[in-house]
């Protein structure tokens, strides 16, 4: 996994609550068997009209946001389906940081597996950020967001922080606990399926 350390970018404000993973990546694009190439389908039904032309009024289609790496959205972002394709689409499109007042649990955990940093901030701070039009710096090492003259700090679990900063392979990490896993299996009462 690619590490995430820091980004400086303008913010894409997505002024919607309860953005579900069906909106982030509609089901017709879940049939691919690889992880790449989902970016062009991100927010498909909001981005394109019935003739697959870009809808001018959707924020991602405004050229001033085309290089943005930070998405700031409303409450309960990523609810619904567990599809990791949603995170693959955001990442492939170019987003590295997603800020919202809250995230759905599975989506939140999927982000860390793909080098995306999800940050929960208070509603009022999220709204403030949505109106910032200059560059914003998100620094994971120091857990800070810098914009204009303001410096805001955010929380992150130290284990997850380390995984993102170093781009660690989760499975390789877990394999260090091989002995404990085997021990657990030896004592388990639960029989095999077959």
């Amino acid at each position, binding site marked *: 996994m690619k590490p995430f350390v820091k980004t400086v970018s303008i913010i894409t404000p997505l*002024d*919607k*609550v*309860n953005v*579900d993973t*069906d*909106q982030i990546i*509609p*089901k*017709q694009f*879940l*049939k*691919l*068997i*690889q*992880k790449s190439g989902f970016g062009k389908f991100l927010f498909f*039904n909001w981005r394109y009209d*019935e003739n697959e032309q870009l809808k001018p009024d959707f924020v991602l289609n405004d050229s001033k946001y085309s290089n943005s790496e930070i998405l700031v959205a*409303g*409450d*309960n972002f990523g*609810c*619904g*389906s*567990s*599809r*990791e*394709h949603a*995170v693959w689409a955001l990442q492939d499109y170019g987003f590295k940081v997603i800020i919202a007042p*809250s995230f*759905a*649990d*599975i989506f939140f*955990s*999927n982000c860390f*597996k*793909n080098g995306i940093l999800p940050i929960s901030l208070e509603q009022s701070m999220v709204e403030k950020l949505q109106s910032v039009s200059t560059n914003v710096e998100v620094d994971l090492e120091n857990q800070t967001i810098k914009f204009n003259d303001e410096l805001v700090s955010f929380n992150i*679990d*130290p*284990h*997850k922080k380390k995984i993102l900063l170093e781009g660690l*392979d*989760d*499975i390789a990490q*877990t*394999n260090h*606990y091989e002995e*404990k*896993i085997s021990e*657990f*299996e030896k004592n*388990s*009462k*639960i*029989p*095999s*399926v*077959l």
Partner: protein
Amino acid sequence: MGKTLFEKIWDSHTVVENHSSPSLLYIDRHLIHEVTSPQAFEGLRMNNRKVRRPDLTIATMDHNVPTNDRKLPILDETSAIQIKTLEKNCNDFGIKLFGMDSPNQGIVHVIGPQLGITLPGTTIVCGDSHTSTHGAFGALAFGIGTSEVEHVLATQTLWLQQPKSFEIRVEGKRANPFAVTAKDIILSIIKHIGTGGGTGTVIEYRGEGISDLSMEQRMTICNMSIEAGARAGLIAPDEKTFEYLRNREYTPKNFESLVDFWKDDLKTDTDSKFSKQFILKANEIAPQVSWGTNPGMTCDVTENVPSPDDFSKGDANQKKGAEKALEYMDLESGTPIQEIKIDRVFIGSCTNARLEDLIEASKVVKGNKVSQNVRAMVVPGSQLVKKQAEELGLDKIFIDANFEWREAGCSMCLGMNPDILSPGERCASTSNRNFEGRQGNGGRTHLVSPVMAAAAAIYGHFVDVRKLSLN
């Protein structure tokens, strides 16, 4: 201090225990399907890794299988590739697959319990958010992403921050158990606590209104825990649970000795503490109909479509959400729910496509015809459910009424197969999500129970099933 049921299952599965950071949890059952697994197997191959416990892993295909004649080739090339890929992966890694021609094929959350693979006190994961369904058996069951699928395949464990315990208590019995179903209970709960109300928690459903339910009804409740944002939902096992699992095809040989252990162990201690609580009275619940674009946007069948102001209770963002929802759903505030006309009816999905759901719906359908302007279909949750329903003659009841009677799969719950709504079509659906475009781009979904969906099919609009006289 005592422990909640969830805390007991959690504690008995921690391989590495941490408190402020994620613990390493052992997984007893891993269910696989075609959509969220290909990239996981690819990851294993790239790193030359094996599946650690193929004997704890079971696969089926459900999300994009066609529900017409199984002998026909799959026309959608990408679906066909995904299905072939699952066959190859199961073959290469030694995983038991209930494939397209298996009598056990079906929606993964329907076949797990009906085969006796789902067991109380176990941890169960699947790359699908509705894995919470299995919680009905007193299991800790939850959906995971594809990277986590890969992690479980390789290590049979998962890193997880311990969620909090949330008690939802349904007191008393329903006044009319035929018309007010488990679906109405869970929709009513989500309406009250909201789609984010359970975030960061595992819900335990308790009270007479829950223990009163059959196993299949309990599955409907736990299934939609994710729609309230919860990581999982569970119900303490009782005699009904054990009886349901006895003598299934994959029920373990030492089942009775496990039952003895489960009976003692799998319940919330009286001196334990939940971090959150919500109480609902069963006899106050009416049949529910969703009017908006998330499951929290739901009201009683006797009510009118609310105004964004009434719905949002002063929250500006929720108000905006409701306005957008009404626009998408093409509904006016104040319209009586029972005047909303529908074009399609879908009885199916991991929420409501078990035998009991089909039996109950057939009671409404029997001797009637689907309204002329409505196209209605029944998609049994598994091939076994289909067979059992046919043995009871339910297929004939539905077909005589002009319902389509299909093969098993997820079908129009998420429209990955050819069963989809056309833009603008309005559907009474027994599924779990009314998100924009979920059942087809531009399609409009109203979530209801199987009996409410059946009645809507006959009348062409929503009706209060409490008022129906049955043939």
